[in-house]
């Protein structure tokens, strides 16, 4: 087999990221069962260990119609579009969904989904916010055990410790490869555009992780072999829940902004932390959640860690500015915005907040804002 070029690999990831339907049909056609995984922090390892394919459901770009029967307009489009897809029968090929309940929109979404979509088996997941104390770890374990039991019933077989350990190994490898890719994409922006970067990361949600890692390892090796980049444009960090809008990312590219790091829920927040070594794999999964941090969705007992983390992440990666992609109606992001802005201002890092959602059609205002921001950054260096 000849080695694919960087361009070919990026094209391949883009095809997958742009067409989740085909991916789902492919897996189901192969006789596999797929489980929809809603945001955030779903222990996908359990799905893999049960011999099934985890399939990320973070809404979709489109128009909300049917979901209006369940939600007033002032809700995050990830939740509304997730329900819209289900109401339109587009999730019927899934053998089940796992739905966490970490924010005030996910709470009613769990209930609306259960009420509206009886044809898709529903697995509820509550994460603890006091997740580090022994009682928090125990609680996570109890909730993950409930997910495990439900998955076993859907799969028709028990999840053994060994298969779970193997799934954890595959996932830790995938996380490591994605973290490495994020670094490399930031170091070689002339070879990986913001749109392509997003496609590589997004495709992982619709692929068997071992397959994804195999392709990504090839890509990483080739990016590593490239000569040092002489990037003349600006370097930025992106922050938000989602950063997969091709229209928005294209504007970053058009304005020569390279994404050198991210604080995005669908991207780095989801693969920042590996599952630690532990004799009992269920304990290991719970300990991973106990260690999660720096996220607007999570309680921060130390209060200031997230803004500090984002500032340091920007500095460590040489980001000159931060683009905050503010998901409309996402109150956790909105509540943490002033603290983030304050920390960035204090550190002398310029930032801009761009409002968007999955129904957005007109990107004119975002383009104007981002052009102006690029000018600010370019004037600074």
């Amino acid at each position, binding site marked *: 087999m000849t080695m694919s070029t960087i361009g070919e690999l990026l094209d391949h990831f883009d095809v997958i990221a742009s067409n989740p339907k085909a991916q789902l049909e492919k897996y189901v056609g192969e006789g596999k069962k797929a489980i929809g995984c809603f945001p955030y922090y779903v222990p996908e390892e359990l799905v893999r260990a049960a011999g099934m394919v985890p399939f990320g459901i973070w809404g979709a770009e489109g128009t909300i119609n049917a979901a209006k029967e369940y939600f*007033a307009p*002032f809700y995050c489009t990830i939740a509304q579009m997730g329900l819209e897809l289900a109401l339109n029968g587009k999730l019927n090929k899934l053998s089940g969904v796992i739905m966490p309940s970490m924010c005030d929109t996910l709470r*009613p979404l769990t209930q*609306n989904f259960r009420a509206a979509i009886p044809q898709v088996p529903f697995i509820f997941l509550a994460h603890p916010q006091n997740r580090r104390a022994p009682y928090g770890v125990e609680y996570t374990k*109890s909730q993950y055990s409930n997910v495990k039991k439900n998955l076993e019933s859907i799969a028709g077989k028990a999840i053994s410790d060994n298969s779970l350990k193997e799934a954890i190994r595959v996932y830790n490898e995938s996380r490591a490869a994605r973290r490495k890719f994020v670094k490399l994409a930031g170091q070689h922006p002339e070879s990986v555009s913001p749109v392509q970067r997003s496609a590589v990361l997004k495709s992982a949600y619709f692929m068997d992780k071992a397959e994804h890692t195999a392709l990504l390892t090839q890509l990483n090796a080739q990016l590593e072999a490239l000569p040092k980049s002489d990037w003349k444009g600006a370097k930025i960090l992106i922050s938000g829940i989602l950063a997969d809008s091709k229209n928005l990312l294209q504007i970053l590219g058009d304005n020569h902004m390279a994404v050198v790091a991210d604080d995005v829920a669908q991207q780095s927040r989801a693969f920042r932390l590996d599952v630690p070594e532990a004799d009992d794999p269920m304990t290991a999964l719970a300990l991973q959640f106990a260690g999660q941090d720096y996220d607007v969705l999570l309680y921060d*007992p130390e*209060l200031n860690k997230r803004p500090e983390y984002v500032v340091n992440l920007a500095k460590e990666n040489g980001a000159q500015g931060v683009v905050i992609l503010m998901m409309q109606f996402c109150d956790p992001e909105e509540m943490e915005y*002033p603290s983030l802005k*304050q920390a960035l201002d204090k550190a002398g890092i310029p930032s801009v907040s761009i409002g968007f959602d999955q129904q957005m059609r007109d990107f004119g205002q975002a383009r104007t804002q981002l052009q102006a921001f690029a000018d600010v950054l370019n004037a600074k260096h």
Partner: protein
Amino acid sequence: MSENQEKKEAKVLLREVVDRVYQNAWDAKKRGEPVGWSSSKFPAEIAEALGLAVCYPENQAAAISAKHGGQRMCEHAESLGFANDICGYARISLAYAAGAECEEKTMPQPDFLLCCNNICNCMTKWYENIARMHDIPLIMIDVPYNNTTEVSEETVAYLKGQFQDAIKQLEKISGRKWDEKRFEEVCQNSNRTAKAWLKACSYCQYVPSPLSGFDLFNHMADVVTARSKPETAAAFEMLAEEYEQAVKNGTSTLPYEEKYRIMFEGIPCWPELRALFKPLKAKGINTTAVVYAPAFGFVYDNLDEMMRAYCKAPNSVCIETGVDWREGICRENKVDGVLVHYNRSCKPWSGYMPEMERRFRKDLSVPVVGFDGDQADPRNFSEAQYATRVEGLFELMEANKAQSGGK
């Protein structure tokens, strides 16, 4: 007790109880003792057992809104970078914590925070932000959302672990030792208040009702700020007696004749109480069911039951429990219709309502009508739309009544 005090009406006593909560906090502050801010459904028994002075930002925000300071405070928070999408109570409270001028309802700035997210997740970030502003300790009791009608043993164990940690943290803050006996006493008081509150609410079942349901919204301040105090229990018991007497006398606090009875779903639009009341009065509609009745009835016999009780907040229970509560009070209190407040400030609450509306129509065979509003920010309420919706509900109730041949 003097002759004069004995004659006080329950509503006066209830107001005094709340005033005393805030006066206590000011006095504590003056003595150099720590003052806490607490979310309304944090287990109040802990701080009360340790003799700590506590204020309640939700109650403060409601009071500020009712006195028309809500928009100004919300705008102040927006100037600090908080989006206008965020809960109005949170915006008002964040503005106050940040030092915004506010004459409508003052309280001492906090030295520690008590946060329980059984109400919503917004609470967590709201309190984190205040803790950051003031650099003060935050005691967090996390109540995970429950998808089933029962509270699991695992959840009880998780809550107990947090409860023990909260006690340790508050012992340090108060400089006092935990006294199990005092705690039991406080729990008894809380149960007595809860039972008296539920009893007072239960008088809405009489036709006509001896009270205007909107009275209950006013008395909520007591269950929020003072449910662990014996004087609160006594005042609610007195309120129940007054209602009992009113039933006998055929009188009511409703200032007009009750022709129709409804459930008012959700938190009222505090800045618009007069506007809310106006079309109801014009049509002879009384509110005889409010979700706050069961929502603050924390009744329990032991620590495990107490943990379970605090899992039962309107936004932390599954849809089946939520529907069951509401249909229970609708049946008990014989409502002819339901008026649903789509509260722009409350995503979890409003997020269940379209599905609940369908279930109410099917299970109760009564008309259900919704309107858009906000608990604190008057910019999200339209008096004209509200009046039209109430008119619509009235016509549907009339048609129902005509069909069933009158009452």
